[in-house]
């Protein structure tokens, strides 16, 4: 069943050479011999002693593969584990296993069975530097605490979002380290009942939820890039989160949130960049308890359609030293209503608002008038979402203008920042944003100007051709 067929794809001489260095047994020092009948990976695991390092030669190996012994498998980036499309590709059931440097493909298609490229059901397992393609589920840790998932790339199947599986799923797997992975075109990366897990330096693109935390506490989420998902990060029903220095960009669609919070207690959201999302932060009932404050500090909210969408039940949030820059709307209260008991400044430091029109008389970089967010049109759109159809049209601006001219129409302010900053605070360094193509943009602009010049010359130059009928000439000149 696990017959390798790498011989078929390699020239015979190479096969001979590779087979000589096939196997290093740390404990026994036994190497596979060139005259071995075939390199049977499953058999090798069966023969290995716990703690052995098995260097797997380049080639394609038929999977499913069961790793039920505490060994290290080294694929060195050239060994392919090809599943038969019936279930998991690799199933790790022994603690302390390391799976490193493989290419995995050919998972099954069953969402019920949750067919995964790598399924782990033991503690202390490291899955590292693997390339996983066309996977229903990518890496799935179930009851597998203290794992390390590092440097893997998972590319999902070309299916509707709802038909895909999770690129990464942690289920009852506490204290796992998820670092430097790339997930593309999968459903979610979900962390479920896995407290203490650290998620750092990953890239999650074009999925449904870039990162999804469910009923799990004590997490550090930092330096990740979450781009082009429906939701960048969604925190649900958990406590004690530190979310810092992540880039949450281009998360759009009907939900389209950079960060979503639902019943999240004690979270520090710091130094993140929310850019070009439909909604930067969406928050519902977070925190649940008055003492479990959610703090937003030094984040950048730029070029989003709406920077913050808060439900009226959001209280005990603190916003300080954030930059709200050129968002379509700074704040919307979902369904209308009023916000209460949130702090828009801490220790006399508010936030920078690009639409602040106050002044700073004493030069302390803090505006002397409070920043007030108040827009009749936005107020109407919050209560009647279908009116967003008129977003960006002059009629919407006219409504706001009318509210300014006739204060009787003015809605209650959504928020009041008592100490708005007049200079944007320093932000964490920017990375992960691609600059626009300057040369091409220049070419386009010059093309437009050239077209204008041509038409203008046509109009300004004397143009009477010789064969124009003389009568018409007179009529024109």
């Amino acid at each position, binding site marked *: 069943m696990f017959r390798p067929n790498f011989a078929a794809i390699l020239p015979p001489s190479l096969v001979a050479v590779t087979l000589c260095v096939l196997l290093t047994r740390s404990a026994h020092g036994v190497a596979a011999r060139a005259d071995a009948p075939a390199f049977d990976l499953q058999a090798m695991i069966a023969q290995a002693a716990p703690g052995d390092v098995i260097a797997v030669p380049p080639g394609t190996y038929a999977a499913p593969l069961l790793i039920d012994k505490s060994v290290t498998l080294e694929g060195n980036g050239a060994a392919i584990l090809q599943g038969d499309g019936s279930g998991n590709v690799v199933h790790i059931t022994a603690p302390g296993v390391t799976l490193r440097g493989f290419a995995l493909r050919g998972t099954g298609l069953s969402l019920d069975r949750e067919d995964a490229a790598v399924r782990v059901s033991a503690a202390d397992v490291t899955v590292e530097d693997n390339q996983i393609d066309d996977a229903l589920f990518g890496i799935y840790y179930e009851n597998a605490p203290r794992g390390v998932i590092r440097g893997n790339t998972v590319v999902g199947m070309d299916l509707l979002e709802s038909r895909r599986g999770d690129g990464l799923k942690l289920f009852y797997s506490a204290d796992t380290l998820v670092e430097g992975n790339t997930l593309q075109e999968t459903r979610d990366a979900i962390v479920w009942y896995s407290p203490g897990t650290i998620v750092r330096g990953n890239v999650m693109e074009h999925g449904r939820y870039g990162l999804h935390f469910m009923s799990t506490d004590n997490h550090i989420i930092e330096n990740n890039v979450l781009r082009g998902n429906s939701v960048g990060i969604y925190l649900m029903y958990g406590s004690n989160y530190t979310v810092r220095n992540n880039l949450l960009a281009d998360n759009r669609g009907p939900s389209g949130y950079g960060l979503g919070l639902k019943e999240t207690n004690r979270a520090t959201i710091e130094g993140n960049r929310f850019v070009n999302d439909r909604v930067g932060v969406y928050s519902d009932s977070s925190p649940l308890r008055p003492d479990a404050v959610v703090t937003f500090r030094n984040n950048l909210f730029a070029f989003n359609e709406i920077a913050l969408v808060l439900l009226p039940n959001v209280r005990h949030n603190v916003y300080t030293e954030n*930059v709200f820059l050129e968002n379509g709307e700074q704040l919307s209260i979902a369904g209308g209503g009023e916000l209460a008991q949130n702090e828009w400044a801490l220790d006399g430091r508010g936030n920078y608002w690009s639409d602040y029109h106050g002044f700073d008389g004493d030069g302390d970089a803090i505006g002397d008038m409070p920043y007030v967010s108040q827009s009749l049109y936005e107020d109407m759109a919050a209560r009647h979402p279908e009116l967003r159809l*008129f977003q960006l049209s002059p009629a919407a601006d006219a409504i706001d203008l009318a509210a300014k001219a006739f204060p009787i129409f003015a809605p209650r302010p959504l928020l009041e920042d008592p100490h708005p900053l007049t200079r944007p605070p320093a932000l964490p360094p920017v990375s992960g944003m691609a600059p*626009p193509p300057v040369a091409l943009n220049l070419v386009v602009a010059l093309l437009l100007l050239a077209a204008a010049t041509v038409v203008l010359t046509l109009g300004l130059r004397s143009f009477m051709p010789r064969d124009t009928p003389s009568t018409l000439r007179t009529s024109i000149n």
Partner: protein
Amino acid sequence: MDLHTVWTIARKELRDALHNRWFLLYTLAFIGLSLGLSYLAMSGSGIAGFAGFGRTAASLINLVLLIVPLMALTVGAQSLAGEQERKTMAYLLAQPITRLEVYVGKYLGLTMSLFASLVLGFGISGLVLAIDGSGASDPWSYLILVGLAFALCLVMLSVGFLVSALTRRAGVAVGIGLFLWLAFVFLGDLGMMGTAVAMRMPINGLFWLSLANPLQVFKMAAILNINATLDVLGPAGIFAMQEYGSKLPLIFIGVLVIWAVLPGVAAFVRFDTSNDF
């Protein structure tokens, strides 16, 4: 139809337009305001460290919605009625040329003049944005935005021509043009907003109704071009994306073409058959 004659009239019309103070004023306003928007975009990218072209484009769309209809409607409204009032139309029509040639020539000439002022405004602000490094991440989408603005220009020019063909005096025509501008830009949308709220209109009905206003059509097409989605427009936009998806650009362009052709043809029929000219 003699193309040569058409071309001659078109160039004469273009020349007149470039000497028309209203036209120059609109052009300067358009250039100035789009430059102002570019400046805002640049200061934004200075703080963020990168550009957010989506928001810049949104402001440009807003600007186009205000100025382009005004420009095209007034220029179109002046066209036939103005010459009629100055009695030059009678003289022109006394020449051995057909009314179709006159009409197409005038339409083409004004189209060229409006095109020039559009690409001048978009070109200058595009240049500023490009040099600053806060331009479009996809230059093609900027070109399409210009194209859509030009399409809106043609729609409004056709409507302006129709107004011009139906009135005898240029002053009246321009007055009606300004009222239409108000209707297209403000009154129509405000009325629709009120209707939507008061009658609890279903979002599919609201979406289809909004297609009746060419300005809304331009706006939706432009947003779709820049963002690749209409989620900005709330439930109605999301409904349109899910229901019509890849057909949306065709729907939008179809509506704009109908809006440009029908009033234009109607204006010609009136111009061709009316004894006023």
